[in-house]
């Protein structure tokens, strides 16, 4: 073949920008197509694996130690009756409760942080969790008398969010106004809850008080399973809005010009986040730190390419399970509220975050 004819066979230059977006997997079926972020899928799977390993470890450690192998055997029903009771009646329910609450916190934190575009805007900062706590405290002390009113949590959270909305209709520059007023609402809700508890005798309220510190002792399936079921039912909605949430990263006006009905989408995502955070709170109380840390770590792992909703959920479960297991081992034979552990971690994290921001402000 001569050189000239070779040159003629050369077709138009390849279009740049690759047919498939870089770093994504494209799945097509007829006219339908689905894009998955490779990094998010891989890291998500790794985190899930870590979560499973940690769960087995968490089941095996405690005042009566098991080997992880024994714990696994117990889960698959191949041990003594005593171990079986310990695993199935005490440790597994606690692990399930912790995982559910942690995932809810991570997911809700990621939703609100992304929506407001401020890392400080998490359900525990803006009063949503405290609103849920107040509602549960009130109901358990005066109305349901003992049986755990987890279902009232979303209403309490919604109530706190409404107060926030009326006080601050404009979220301000990067949502700072929203965060600052949210802290005020949060304090108010907490004070009201403490006032309610102070009107009762200490014996009567000690369990509730422990719970308001963030405590997973004795949280059985009766709360965590219905909560987990509702959370799973909300997942398709979160998935639906995740596309728009990613476009909202470009700012409200650009998102709107790209066809996102911004007002409606923001409202829907906020409602979802409030529901999810409240349900997470209903299990083990208002645990701080998880909702802020999980999305930050997830964003870091995904190099900020997308809003890391699912990785944040898995990381939330992972972080809370770590804290809970740690506190259980460390404080043995006493019981220390898991929330105290996360509060310490959260305080350090918040300081790091604010000090970093201070550097930027200078």
């Amino acid at each position: 073949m001569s050189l000239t004819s070779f040159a003629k066979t050369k077709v138009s230059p390849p279009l740049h920008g690759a047919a498939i977006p870089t770093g994504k997997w494209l799945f097509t079926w007829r006219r339908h197509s689905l894009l998955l972020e490779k990094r998010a899928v891989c890291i998500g799977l790794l985190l899930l694996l870590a979560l499973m390993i940690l769960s087995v470890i968490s089941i095996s450690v405690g005042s009566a130690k098991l080997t992880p192998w024994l714990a696994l055997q117990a889960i698959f029903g191949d041990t003594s009756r005593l171990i079986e009771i310990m695993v199935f009646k005490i440790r597994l329910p606690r692990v399930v409760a912790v995982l559910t609450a942690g995932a809810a916190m991570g997911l809700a934190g990621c939703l609100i942080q992304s929506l407001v575009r401020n890392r400080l805007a998490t359900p525990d900062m803006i009063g949503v969790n405290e609103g849920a706590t107040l509602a549960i405290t009130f109901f358990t002390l005066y109305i349901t008398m003992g049986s755990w009113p987890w279902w009232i949590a979303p209403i309490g959270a919604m109530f706190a969010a409404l107060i926030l909305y009326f006080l601050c209709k404009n979220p301000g520059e990067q949502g700072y106004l929203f965060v600052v007023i949210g802290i005020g609402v949060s304090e108010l809700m907490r004070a009201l809850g403490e006032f309610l508890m102070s009107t009762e005798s200490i014996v009567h309220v000690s369990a509730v008080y422990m719970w308001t510190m963030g405590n997973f002792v004795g949280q059985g399936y009766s709360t965590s399973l219905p909560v987990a079921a509702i959370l799973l039912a909300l997942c398709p909605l979160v998935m639906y809005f995740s596309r728009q949430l990613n476009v909202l990263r470009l700012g409200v006006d650009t998102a709107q010009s790209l066809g996102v009905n911004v007002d409606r989408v923001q409202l829907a995502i906020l409602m979802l986040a409030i529901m999810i955070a409240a349900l997470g709170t209903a299990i083990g109380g208002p645990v701080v730190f998880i909702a802020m840390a999980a999305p930050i770590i997830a964003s870091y792992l995904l190099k900020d390419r997308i809003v890391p909703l699912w990785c944040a959920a898995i990381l939330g479960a992972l972080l809370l399970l770590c804290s809970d297991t740690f506190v259980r081992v460390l404080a043995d034979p006493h019981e220390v509220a898991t929330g105290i552990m996360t509060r310490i971690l959260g305080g350090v994290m918040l300081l790091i975050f604010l000090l970093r921001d201070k550097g930027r402000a200078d």
Partner: protein
Amino acid sequence: MALLSVNGINFCYESKAVIKDVSITLSAGSLVGIVGPNGGGKSTLIKLLAKQMMPTAGEIVLKQQPLSNYTMKQLAKHIAYLPQHPTIPAGITVEQLVQYGRHPHQSWFRQWSEQDAEQVAKAIQLMNLESILDQSVASLSGGQRQRAWLAMILAQDTDIILLDEPTSALDIGHQIEVLESISEMVSAGKTVVLVIHDLAAAARYCDELIAIGEGKVIASGPVNDVITKSLIDSLYKTDVDIMQAPFDHAPVIVPRRKKSNVVDLKRLG
């Protein structure tokens, strides 16, 4: 046939009239510049055209349909709008940014198609971004960054493109880079409306100008009808001289000093 026509719109913000009885028509394939003093209502007008806000009275008609009849998603297939200070998310690459432009054409069950790939590739080619596709948008120079945003808008594949001061924060080199890119878009068949402060650049690149002052259309039409000494004097309340550029005889506007200052300087000298 007018592509977009604005029929006597008014817009009030906190009971102050910002846009007063503005009527304009936009024909296909032109580059239209909106000029005028700060606070005169230029940005508000372009936001109204983009349906970022709704006019208090009057009507905007796009392809024989009032703008209010379009959902945001439908409208995003006809009109693309780039705000003056768009937010750049951390960690986002040029390629990802351009792909965002396809959002109005996608849905949950149709996240990437042949057309998406084609339009993104075309936009990247037209805006010359091939060499910086994998760089983070935040790390780019002002001109490159603006070109990346323009590519996103192009990938949206709309007839009309609205740009709010796309060159305002750029030095002259980057300004020319961006204006040339915008001319490319017009040659590619787009109708572009841009808010622009630099009168000389507006005169050189635009086909038509609309001068807005105090919320009203002061003048509109071909560049030479709008750039006249009397009009510019009154629009900006400043005495100017209009000269011709040596290269292409495009009008160059040179403002004079206020008289009082000149007298003061002489006395000092």
